[in-house]
């Protein structure tokens, strides 16, 4: 908290905070307003006398209804959910074991291996999708959820590995040594002692991985083509923008509904998540 005169508190705390919150929440507000705005208001020119961009007096759920009935939005949500959960599960499992090994076990080239995994994370997806597309075609995985379930881990595993590595390093190694003297094998010490303590870290890696796969765009755009295989970000943008016609109401409704699961996951685990970013383990 800022100490001192009231004006200092306003200038250094309340004002920047308010500006930040407004900037952060405004897109969501815009999404909401556009979703419930009737078409007649949506396409009104900006210089019309009754132009009211920030509110509407005739809210309607027409766009939401259109989105759910006229498009495959439900299917896209389901696809995205399955793909995100599967990719997250695979990446979390691999990241957990790799992170543990890199932070705890001594083996040749452990350090350089860690760095190499990190470097793979730095390769931009916009570059990687070209060779990946070739691989997907060779394995005949194109246009199926597997195309994404198997390619998302290429960036999720390095991410989870590094996050878990950092978290495992913050857990005193004496805990594990003590467990091993107490009669646990390395595997049991890991499962009974280290993993339960690492739950906040595992959760935040999971949330991040889930969000990244939920929002992923390029791979989904390139590897999937039939409308009923698409994910939300690709489905909404490709099916609701036809040529130069933007179905703004449905687009925004899709964006709004599409962000609900992620928001839900965050709010559900927020305490663990914050604990993992700020807290350390005390023995």
């Amino acid at each position: 908290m800022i100490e001192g005169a009231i004006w200092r508190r306003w200038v250094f705390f309340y004002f920047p905070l308010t500006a930040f919150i407004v900037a952060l929440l405004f897109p969501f507000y815009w999404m909401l307003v556009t979703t419930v705005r009737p078409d007649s208001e949506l396409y009104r020119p900006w210089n019309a006398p009754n132009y009211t961009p920030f509110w509407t007096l005739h809210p309607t759920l027409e766009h939401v209804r259109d989105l759910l009935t006229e498009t495959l939005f439900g299917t896209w949500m389901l696809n995205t959910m399955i793909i995100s959960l599967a990719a997250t599960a695979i990446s979390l499992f691999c990241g957990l074991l790799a992170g543990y090994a890199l932070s705890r076990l001594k083996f040749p080239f452990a350090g350089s291996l860690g760095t190499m995994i990190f470097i793979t994370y730095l390769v931009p997806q916009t570059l990687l999708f070209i060779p990946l597309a070739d691989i997907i075609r060779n394995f005949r995985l194109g246009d199926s959820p597997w195309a994404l379930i198997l390619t998302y881990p290429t960036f999720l595993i390095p991410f989870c590995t590094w996050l878990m590595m950092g978290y495992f390093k913050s857990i005193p190694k004496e805990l594990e040594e003590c467990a091993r003297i107490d009669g646990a094998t390395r595997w049991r010490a890991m499962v009974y002692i280290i993993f339960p303590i690492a739950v906040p870290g595992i959760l935040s890696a999971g949330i991040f991985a889930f969000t990244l796969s939920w929002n992923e765009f390029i791979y989904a755009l390139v590897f999937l083509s039939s409308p009923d295989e698409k994910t939300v970000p690709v489905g909404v943008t490709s099916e609701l923008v036809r040529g130069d016609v933007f179905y703004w109401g449905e687009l925004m409704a899709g964006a709004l509904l599409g962000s609900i699961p992620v928001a839900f996951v965050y709010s559900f685990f927020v305490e663990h998540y914050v604990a993992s970013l700020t807290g350390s383990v005390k023995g």
Partner: protein
Amino acid sequence: MAQVVIRSLNKKFDEVHAVKDVNLDIRDKEFMVFVGPSGCGKTTTLRMVAGLESITSGRILIDDKVINELPPMDRDIAMVFQNYALYPHMSVYDNMAFGLKMRKFDRADIARRVQEAAEILGIQQLLQRKPRQLSGGQRQRVALGRAIVRHPQVFLFDEPLSNLDAKLRVQMRVELKKLHDRLGTTAIYVTHDQVEAMTLGDRVVVMRDGVVQQVGEPLELYNEPANRFVAGFLGSPAMNFATVKVNRDNGAIWAANTGLQIKAPPEYTDRLGRYVGQEVTLGIRPEDLHVASADDPTELGFDVVVEVVEKLGSEILLDVAAGSDTMVASVEPNVRAKIHDHLRLALNPERLHFFDMHSEAAI
């Protein structure tokens, strides 16, 4: 029955030779303390006994059985760590029961043993708490409890008291001693605190740079240190050292430098004889110095200037300058000495120590 035998034990970490050719025989039921400055190899030695560190060469035997290759769980040992290493997600009860559960004891047996250990340590009312709800002293007890429930053959302690405040440390030290007397389990205790080493140990191992300097009972080490390092490490305030030249005069041996001239007692004549004309290190413990009275022979006294007076209540510490040397003398509390006073100090001739200048070994 558990004796621990260490033979030609070595540990090398890449470049560093952390433990060099250590040989030790730790007897059954003995409380053995490893002491030394940080980086002396004492913790590494302990961790090799625990099985947490691989052995570069040499052997470790518990009860005549070589345990070099045994995993920690099969060595029948228990270890208490400096940071307690309590499992933060488990209650005190589960912390103590963990080792028994891993070893597949039945529930009733676990409950009985945990209760028993909790009673010994006075932590029955804490069993349902989580470690974060405990104070430092309570955590320490839980860590001890976790070690004693298993009735292991050997206890290993890695500086278990160094995270406690001074008062609690003294209290826990006494309790540890009592606990050891009660359980009679062989114990190896690592510390950098010489007071803990002296008070707890049946025998003490002093280590420096990976090498064992001396092994013996606490008073033996204190009274007859094998070398200058042991002499300086044990005792607080530390032993005073002065470089002196050995001379022979009328058959008597004198040790002298610019500030003092002392006639060595007859029993030193033989031992110091071969150093005549050479320099040696003279060691005097602060409590072996006193303010000279008329009864003290002049050849055992020397003049000093008081530089600092530290009144501790039960004694007074005088930091004095004797020629170019500075010394600390622990004198009676009734001595009235002020800073810049000129005093004559006398020393106790039976308790002089001489060390070789090069090898630093006791003469």
